[in-house]
């Protein structure tokens, strides 16, 4: 009967409380109701929710709202945690808390916005793939795709990576659109994906950041080169010389060439 001995609030681990919760839910007498045990687990993990919410303050959303979203993840973790899987509860809860906070922020800000030009390029890519398949009966190689679209192979690779990140986003959107509160992944599901899911998540987020930056870059370039103003006019507006404007544009082009690995023209 030592298992049922009350350890005192300070010594109750999440796992110990969850074990009691499972037994209470099965009708066993453990001295507390399931509701009381759930409340105790949530109270015990308030600090975890707050610490994760603080990491997302740069989203601009109020901390209280981030914490509220985090609580949803915590409650899902309490409901779905599987003791038999021997993961730590805090690890599993952190995953779900972060997921709910990210979902909340995405809903508010559309965090991962796919730039229009990326969508256009992916549409062209898909059309070229389909046209090639219809013509030859087989999918095109990277070099054949590059030739069809008049792009280099590394640019096609970059587009395919972009498409990978778009697919990830659409999966999440589909999942949420079918059910606004989809069942959280179980610990078994997380274990099954461990080792491949995490790096992919990293890559998706970094690629989203790169896409966002290239989108900004294109806005700047469009503003600079498509307004039809002369360098002298621009210089007058900014209070700098035409020569300074010229140097600035040259540097911008260098940056663009570096970013997209385009060879510099020979002088």
């Amino acid at each position, binding site marked *: 009967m030592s298992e049922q001995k009350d350890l005192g609030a300070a010594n109750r681990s999440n796992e110990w409380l969850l074990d009691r919760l499972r037994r209470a839910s099965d009708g066993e007498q453990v001295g507390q109701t399931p509701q009381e045990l759930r409340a105790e687990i949530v109270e015990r993990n308030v600090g975890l929710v707050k610490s994760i919410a603080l990491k997302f303050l*740069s989203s601009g959303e109020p901390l209280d709202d981030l914490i509220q979203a985090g609580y949803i993840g915590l409650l899902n973790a309490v409901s779905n945690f599987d003791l038999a899987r021997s993961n*730590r509860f805090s690890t599993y809860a952190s995953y779900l808390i972060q997921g709910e906070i990210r979902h909340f922020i995405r809903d508010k800000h559309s965090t991962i916005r796919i730039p229009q030009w990326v969508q256009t390029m992916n549409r062209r890519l898909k059309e070229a793939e389909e046209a090639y398949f219809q013509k030859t009966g087989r999918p095109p190689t990277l070099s054949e795709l590059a030739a069809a679209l008049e792009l280099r192979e590394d640019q096609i690779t970059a587009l395919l990576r972009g498409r990978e990140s778009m697919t990830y986003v659409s999966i999440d959107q589909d999942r949420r659109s079918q059910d606004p509160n989809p069942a959280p992944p179980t610990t078994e599901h997380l274990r099954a994906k461990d080792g491949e899911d995490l790096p992919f998540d990293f890559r998706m987020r*970094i690629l989203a950041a790169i896409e966002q930056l290239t989108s900004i870059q294109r806005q700047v370039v469009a503003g600079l080169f498509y307004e039809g103003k002369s360098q002298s006019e621009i210089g007058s507006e900014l209070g700098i010389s035409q020569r300074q404007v010229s140097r600035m544009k040259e540097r*911008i082009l260098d940056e663009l060439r570096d970013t997209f690995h385009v060879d510099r023209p020979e002088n």
Partner: protein
Amino acid sequence: MKDAKSSHDLLTLIGSAIEQLQRGIELFETSSKREGAACLATVIQSIDAYLAHAQEDPLLQLARIDSSDLSDDLQHVKLDLAAVIHQVEDPREN
């Protein structure tokens, strides 16, 4: 040669940020997650440094970029990177 203002113009920031992010991806793929995260942290610091002086960037006026929209966009970039760094700093324990 870079002039004094070059570290505070938007395209220099983007060029160096993309370079760092691509390097970050390479490091993650070779399992150097801590070093990859350090690359991402550098980008966040660069964005913060840029935003602190963004009003002095002539490119924004030149390209007619709204500084508050830009700030929002860069905050989104920071948010994504911060999430990755957080995952690296708080690895799963199985």
